[in-house]
Every structure is written in structure tokens, then in C-alpha cells.
């Protein structure tokens, strides 16, 4: 399961100044895969992937440390009305989220998405968006 973490780095003791991920890993023993991180001077955002069964534990521990946690179920969303099944997104995606089925319909494996946003810009039909 993918969790989108947001944390402040304003104050010296804000979670963004602490080794929160390392702490969660050592305390819980859950292996966390950091898929994307965007950290600036005031705040940070991070996308992590963890086994589904450990999600509650990790989430609870992160929230205790002051991190805002959002479960990303469908990171990238496809609007079936707008999509014409062209496939422009397929080769743009670094995570191989998109492919064709036997009927040349677009198949979306959104669990692989790391929210890079490339497909959203590349879609000629404006059919892709990020989960709101």
C-alpha cells in the first residue's frame, strides 16, 4: 500500500527535522520503500510503499510523530469518458502503470504509480489526473 506523507520542517522539533522513517523502520521492523521525496526548507512530502498488512501500524506510528498520512488507493485516475485508448501514456510512465489488454483497451495498474505526473501532462485528452 502507498502512503503519502506530509510533514512540517518549520520548527527545530517538527517531524521533518527528525529521522522519522528510520525510527519507524527500527521500531516496527517494517521495510519501507521510499518511492518519491520532495523536501524543501519549510515542508516535505514523501511517497512510501509498505506491505498492506503493516499499513495500520506504520500509519499510527507516523501520525504519533506528527506526520500527516494519506492512503493513496488510486494515485492516478483515468476518466473513461475522455480516454480514447490511444496509449500515449504507456511509454512515458517510468513505472509501467499503463498497458493494453487483448482488446486494445488501456489497462491502468495504479498501485504502481509514484505520482510523478508525467502521464497527466502527456495525455492528449486530459483523461488522467491525480487522486484528489
Amino acid at each position: 500500500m502507498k502512503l503519502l506523507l506530509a510533514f512540517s520542517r518549520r520548527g527545530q522539533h517538527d517531524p521533518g527535522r527528525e529521522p522519522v522513517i528510520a525510527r519507524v523502520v527500527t521500531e516496527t521492523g517494517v521495510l519501507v520503500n521510499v518511492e518519491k521525496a520532495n523536501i524543501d526548507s519549510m515542508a516535505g512530502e514523501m511517497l512510501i510503499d509498505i506491505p498492506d498488512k503493516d499499513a495500520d501500524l506504520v500509519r499510527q506510528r507516523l501520525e504519533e510523530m506528527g506526520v500527516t498520512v494519506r492512503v493513496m488507493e488510486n494515485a492516478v485516475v483515468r476518466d473513461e469518458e475522455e480516454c480514447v485508448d490511444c496509449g500515449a501514456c504507456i511509454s512515458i510512465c517510468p513505472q509501467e502503470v499503463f498497458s493494453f489488454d487483448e482488446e486494445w483497451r488501456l489497462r491502468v495498474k495504479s498501485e504502481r504509480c509514484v505520482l510523478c505526473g508525467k502521464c497527466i501532462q502527456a495525455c492528449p485528452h486530459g483523461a488522467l489526473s491525480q487522486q484528489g
Partner: protein
Amino acid sequence: MEKSLDLINARIRDGTARIVTAEEMPGIVDELGEEGALAEVDVVTTGTFGAMCSTGAFFNFGHADPPIRMERVWLNDVEAYAGIAAVDAYLGATEEAESKDHLYGGAHVLEELVAGGTVELRATSRGTDCYPRRSITTELLLDDMNQAVMVNPRNAFQRYNAASNATDRTLNTYMGTLLPRCGNVSYSGAGTLSPLANDPGFRVIGSGVPIFLAGGEGMIVGEGTQHSAGGGFGNLMVAGDMKQMRQEFLRAAVMNGYGVTMYVGVGIPIPVLDTGIVRSTAVRDEDILTDIIDFGTPRRDRPSLATVSYADLRSGSVEIGGETVRTSSLSSYRQARAVAQELKAWIEAGKMELALPTRRIDPAKRSKPMRETAVTPRVRDIMNRQVISITEDEEIRVAAKRLLRDETNHLPVLDGNGTLVGIITTYDVSKAVVTDGRLRQVKDIMTRKVIKTTADEPVDIAARKLEQNNISALPVVDATNRVVGILSAIDLGKLFGGRRRR
């Protein structure tokens, strides 16, 4: 054996004609042989659904009271060409709206009309004795127009070059997003289903032939603009009544960083008259070859990186220089199939009969490049040939002196053989000074990845390199990477000083 068109149309009328799609045909020919397929199949339907920028429609809005002779016309703020009589206009798909808060263009207006939506017509005029009115604003539905005739000057190309990008930065093109270092390949076209791939000799595809156009019944006007069948890039000018069209087969699109375009569904029925037509409609993806072109070369004639078939492209990946590269289609194969299927259903239901061309399209014609009468300025016309350079083993101090003495900001760095290996600027030298003298030689501080140009490169392209890389000079190199000049932003100013050659 041969079959006449009259026989085929008689079979369509009495419901006994055998219609198949171009996707089914190769298998039928394999099974029955050419003679057998000729006896069995009467019509092969083709289809394609992809971005066709060259799309638009003529409208007649009817006369207002008091009447107006429209000189400028906008539909939902997208300008249409109004230089055709009083209340007529042609709206092109790629024309963009004047208020640019989001990309919206002619294609969106056309889709909106076909979907049954309301469009705002705005027009202005200077006013005449017979047409006194000077402006009008009104809301129109497609049904309110007397005529809405789609006329697409250049649709349904025989094949399209595929696109890749060998440069280091992402390119946004009409072929979609092209990732750096040949990170992907983008292609277009329906391969085996593609109309012209099934009749490359233009034997039965020509003027007057009835077609499927965006969900309605249309016809072929003749060869498309830039038709170049001799080189494998034939195309068609097509027309159809927009009032019959459906949104499913007419969709506006935006190519990121490029602009507005329109996805159009086109299908052509091919009468199976003889074994020649059996053979041409038995074409498979494997038989249709195209080149992967490097869009990183910003010129008309771009180099080919590889030649591949549509079977390769549709497999999901191709090989370029030993590397596996993933492919993306810009056109929709599923929709191309839907076009061919629907056309098949029309003919089976007796809704459309076939016709032979009233005028043939030249299968050998080639399009010409533009004749340019003004000389395009080249880098050699304005570059500075007095190049001050330095070698990589010199001390930074020497470089600093040279920059000062020659009042220049850029020093191309050469190796022992005189070839370009780097560049340093006054900024690099200043940076070296503040690092406590740990860096001593030019090669310690030089930029090794030099953005450069050649003497015969058009100045416009060199200027774009300066702008995109936020730099102010480009070394000019020859084929062996020896520096023959330097082009600085200051040299570009010469173009505006009247020294441009005519």
C-alpha cells in the same frame, strides 16, 4: 476472375454481400487463397482514429436582421476564417482561443457542436449599404446552421514516421512527449487497418468514393495537401456533413507544449474487384514499414534511427542501437477497429453502397519542400572567427589573464590535438578563486559537456540553444570537433544591424 462494382452493389442491396474488416482479410486469404478470397469477400472495410491536425469545417450561419457582412468571426472565442461571403466561415481545428487561460481551440468547438452543445458566435464588420450591421453575438447549435460541412485538407496518411529523441532534454512535439536519450518511441497509424495501406496504388480510393467520416457518411474529395504517395506518404482530402457526426469519433486533444489538435475517425470501404485488390487488402502490420525519426534534430530532414514495422511498434517495444525502447501509440487502435466495424455494419445493413473513383489520385506523386527565396542566415554569416582558446593543462591564472586581455567571457578548451574538450567562463574562474586554490588547472573547472553549433546551422536553431540552456556563447566546430569560431549572443545582434544577406 473479376467482379464488377455493380455486382457488389447488387449483393449489398439484396443483403448477400460478404463484408469483412481489413484485420480479418489476411487470415481469409491465407485460408482460401487469392482466388478463393476474391470469390468469398465483396468488401473490405478499413479504419483509423488518430490526431489529424488538418481538420476543420465550413459553416453557413444564415442571415441576421439587419444583415451583417461578417469580416471577422469567432466561435467560442476561436477565430474562424471569414474571407468567404457574408455569413460563412471556416474554422480550423488547430486555431487557438484568444483568451489563453487554458488551451482551447477549434477542435474543442467542433467537438462541442457535434456533442449538441451551444457555441457563441461573435462577428464584426465595417458595415456596408447592403449589410449595415457592424457586430453580432448569438448562441448557436449545430442544428441552427444551414450547413456545417467538414472539409479536412489532409487526413488518413498512408503511414506516419515514428518519433524518438536522441537529445538530453524532453521534447514536446506533435508526436507527443519524447523522453531524452531515446527514452521512448511514439507512433501513429492503424497498420493493417489503415485505409491507404490497403490500397497503396490508389486503384479504388479516389475522388467521389463514399467513406465513414467521424461517425457520418462522407466522401473523398481527392488527394490531400502534401500528398506524397511516391514516398509512401499519400493522404486524402475528405468532406462530410457534420450534422451526422458523433462525438465518439471526433475528439479534441491537446499535445502538451505543442497545441490543439483533433482526433478523427476515418474509414474507407474497399470493393474486392480482382486478385490485385485481394493482395493489397491482405496487408499485415509486418508488411508496413516506417522509420523512427530523431526529433532531436530541429530540421526539416531528420535522421532515421531505425526502420521498423507496425508489428514491431505495436508489440510494445523496439530496438534502437541495441537498446530496447518502449513504444506509445498516439492513435487509438481500439477506435480504429470500431470505425472499421461500424462501416462494416453500415454496408451489411445496405446503408451505404460503393462507388469507383470519378478521378484517380496519382500514386507516384511526391511533395516538394518549400522554395525559399530569402537566404536563411547561418551561423557562419555572423560567427566570430577570431577564437581565443586555451588548453586543458594550463593554469587557471593563465585562463583568467586571457579572459581579461581579450575582453571575452568564454574560452573554448582544447586538448593536445586541438579538438574541443570543454569550455570555461569568467564565472568558472571566479568560482575557482573562492575555493582556496585547491583547483589549479583549466581541466579541473571546465564544463566538459559543451553545447556547441556548426557553421552551417541556421541562426534560429543556434539562438534557441542559447535560450534553452541559458548560456551566452556557443563554440562553432567542424566535423572533426575542431573549433572554427564562436557565436555569442552579441553576434546575434548583427542580424538586426542590416548585415543580413538577401
